[in-house]
């Protein structure tokens, strides 16, 4: 049973447009969410996070939105750049287990 689901394995967006990556979760105990970005042949790198007490967190071109009632979060990238092409992982932290649970990832391709 996957507690964090990224239902879109891939997404293509034109340069300059908005990229929206979605993530759904089932564990009500998650109290913190993170997005990681991964380039080929490299390890994941932290991108942005959000606490469950907030519904939005912004960092430059990246904004994460959290809808707790729907158990859904999304990452918005505006404007998208070719260098943003990577795999994006959503992850949740269980308040009691204190472990990161990752989704399966979404491959974003930004077309020039």
């Amino acid at each position, binding site marked *: 049973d*996957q507690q*964090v689901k*990224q239902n879109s394995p891939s997404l293509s967006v034109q340069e300059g447009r908005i990229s929206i990556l979605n993530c759904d979760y089932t564990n009500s105990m998650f109290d*913190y969410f993170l997005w990681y970005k991964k380039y080929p*042949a*490299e*390890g*994941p*790198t*932290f991108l942005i*996070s959000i606490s469950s007490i907030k519904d939005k967190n912004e960092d430059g071109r990246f904004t994460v939105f959290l809808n707790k009632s729907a158990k859904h979060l999304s990452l918005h990238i505006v404007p998208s750049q070719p260098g943003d092409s990577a795999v994006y*992982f959503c*992850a949740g*932290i269980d308040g009691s287990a*204190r*472990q*990161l*649970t*990752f*989704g*399966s*990832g979404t491959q974003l391709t930004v077309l020039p």
Partner: protein
Amino acid sequence: DAGITQSPRYKITETGRQVTLMCHQTWSHSYMFWYRQDLGHGLRLIYYSAAADITDKGEVPDGYVVSRSKTENFPLTLESATRSQTSVYFCASSDGYVGNNEQFFGPGTRLTVL
């Protein structure tokens, strides 16, 4: 080199052989982690360590052994490799466990078990 390194980067082995994947970090982070990445599963935690000589199981520990005699090293051993252990393995480290403590990942080891 500063940061977190893994060796080897690529490894091919046969079923039943013992394999050790190495992880080394230079930040003196107290926590270290091992994950495996498989298609359709994202990254799954195998083992983690809070400090030297302190280790604990993650989500998928079966078939793996870890040790941490020094803060900077966290080797992962497959005592008798199986084909299902073919995967990409990532080591990570952080100042604290989770939450506000960012985990820094190594470049990964691609392991193939024939």
